[in-house]
């Protein structure tokens, strides 16, 4: 998309340069101010058409006339984000860019603005034949996010795998030449636990790719009600050990189409997380319902919660909110991304509502399928009921 915008940007820049080079400054001024006294000439029509085209773009375009201070802004440039104070900051950055281009002929910068999450805006300026200045504003938040996710993934993956490998190497090194049985025993135990950790990470990574490439051939109709009962009962022991109450409420017929074992592992992951991040004495509740044609399952805890800046990123592979704590609890850093993959593969959605210190609710929506009909009766119109 970025390349397309850039091309469109270059094309419009060329078009504007061409038009402006042929017209007098006065004409440009008239067109920019849209004066009603201007007769309906071809000149004006072509400008109006051009401006309509520019209004259609998602990239903000500002054309400033050197001599008159009149500025044209396309629709996207007027309300870039819809957040007033951010739009004012963009406006200011555009004015600064115009001044910079006046002196240096060209310019480019990235504006960073915090509004809930951080927005990144690329602002570019060009001088067109010394007649006017063109500034484009492009929202590159999504693009830069993908870049961050990719670089973070590689860095985190190597870190996650290197840590246990390094530990195993160091422990084995100490083991060589160690004669005291008790120490040997202890070192061997640590080697086993580090190897298990490594195996868990590799297993989880394999799970992820399996889910991505698994087809829908083996899918069957699955009733989520007994799935949730199974998930809750297998996690009941862990919950009790931490002094946490785990409850299940909801509907009895929750039919979806999918892979039962994947669904069990997905819900189990969420319940496991909810228990892990609750304080002793807390409550974790799993509730299910049918809303419209969707099966909705909500897993709520009253634990530490997740801040807004992390909420967007917790489903990324190896992303950790609190690195020290989540490693201590034995997580692989892949749990939530596996859950998200499973839900998306099943045509559903997952969302999180959370507040730090208050708790989190993960809500999963999956398309409902009607229970297998045993007595299919034709209706009067001949269609199946």
């Amino acid at each position, binding site marked *: 998309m970025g390349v397309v915008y850039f091309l469109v940007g270059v094309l419009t820049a060329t078009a504007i340069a061409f038009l402006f080079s042929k017209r007098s400054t006065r004409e440009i001024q008239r067109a920019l101010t849209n004066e009603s006294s201007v007769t309906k000439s071809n000149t004006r029509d072509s400008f109006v058409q051009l401006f309509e085209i520019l209004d259609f773009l998602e990239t903000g375009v500002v054309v400033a006339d050197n001599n008159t201070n009149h500025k044209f802004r396309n629709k996207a440039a007027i309300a870039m984000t819809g957040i007033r104070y951010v739009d004012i*900051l963009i*406006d200011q950055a555009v004015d600064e860019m115009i001044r910079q281009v006046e002196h240096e002929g060209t310019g480019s910068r990235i504006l960073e603005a915090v509004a809930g999450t951080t927005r990144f805006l690329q602002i570019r300026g060009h001088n067109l034949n010394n007649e006017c200045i063109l500034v484009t504003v492009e929202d590159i938040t999504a693009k830069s996010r993908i870049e961050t996710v990719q670089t973070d993934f590689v860095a985190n993956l190597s870190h996650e795998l290197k840590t246990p490998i390094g530990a195993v190497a160091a422990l084995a090194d100490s083991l060589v030449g160690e004669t005291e049985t008790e120490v040997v025993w202890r070192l061997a135990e640590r080697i086993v636990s580090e190897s298990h950790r490594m195996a868990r990470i590799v297993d989880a990574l394999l799970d992820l790719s399996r889910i991505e490439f698994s087809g829908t051939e083996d899918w069957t109709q699955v009733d989520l009600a007994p799935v949730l009962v199974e998930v809750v009962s297998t996690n009941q022991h862990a919950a009790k050990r931490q002094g946490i109450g785990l409850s299940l409420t909801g509907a009895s017929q929750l039919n979806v189409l999918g892979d039962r074992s994947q669904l069990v592992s997905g819900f189990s992951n969420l319940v496991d997380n909810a228990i892990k991040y609750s304080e002793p004495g807390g409550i974790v509740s799993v509730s299910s319902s049918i809303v419209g044609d969707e099966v909705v399952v909500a897993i709520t805890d009253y634990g530490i919660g997740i801040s807004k800046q992390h909420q967007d990123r917790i489903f990324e592979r190896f992303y950790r909110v609190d690195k020290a704590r989540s490693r201590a609890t034995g997580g692989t850093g892949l749990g939530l991304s596996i859950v998200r993959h499973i839900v998306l593969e099943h045509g559903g959605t997952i969302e999180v509502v959370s507040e*730090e210190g208050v708790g989190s609710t993960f809500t999963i929506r999956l398309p409902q399928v009607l229970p297998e009909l045993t007595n299919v009766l034709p209706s009067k119109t001949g269609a199946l009921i």
Partner: protein
Amino acid sequence: MDEIRKDFHNDLDAARAEVIRLGASLTESIPRATAILLSGDLEGADYLVQADDEFDARSAELEALCFEILALQAPVAADLRQVIAIIKIAGELERSADLVVNICKAARRIYGHNIDPMLRGVISKMSEQAQKLFESTMEAFEENDAAKAAAIDDMDSYLDSLHRQFIQQIFESHSNSKIDLQVAVQLAVVARFYERIGDHAVNVSERTRFIVTGWVRERDGINRYKARIGDPTGEFTLNLEQN
């Protein structure tokens, strides 16, 4: 626009535009500082501390522009109120930006310490509310909306109640040994910064009301004082009140 006083109106427009821009920078810096505080982002803290110099310079330039308008253009009535109010607002914005810097400095002081999730939650809420206050205040200023400006005071009382809730939470977290004393004290001060930012937003909104209607916040108090001492000059009025 009055073509005879074109320069004057251009200057006044420029001053108003700069207030709006300074307000936008300030509003953006509030959630930014909170993210810095909660994530222990020392680099970000450094950036905001340094950015404050530019903010100071801009508000000083804004004041200078207003003085120039007063000296050279001798505005009256609504225009005079506008210029006087902008001088005062520049000070409020500058002070609020200092408070944002103070939040960043507190982030440096408590770097490396864990903050109890309950406290983090209330800090986020206070930050959101302080940001909302400035967003609304600046909108009221931009739109010359006295009714919107008058509502800011009530919005601020929610921030005040969050502040009280936060102090209560600090005591609880400290007694449960979830935070140590140094962090507790720093966080109590941080909460105060947010609360003060809200107060400055209220002050800006009062200046907006003054621009639109000539309303002076202190009038009731002044009249009470005059009645108490038996001042023969009668009720306090400001000649600027007529449009």
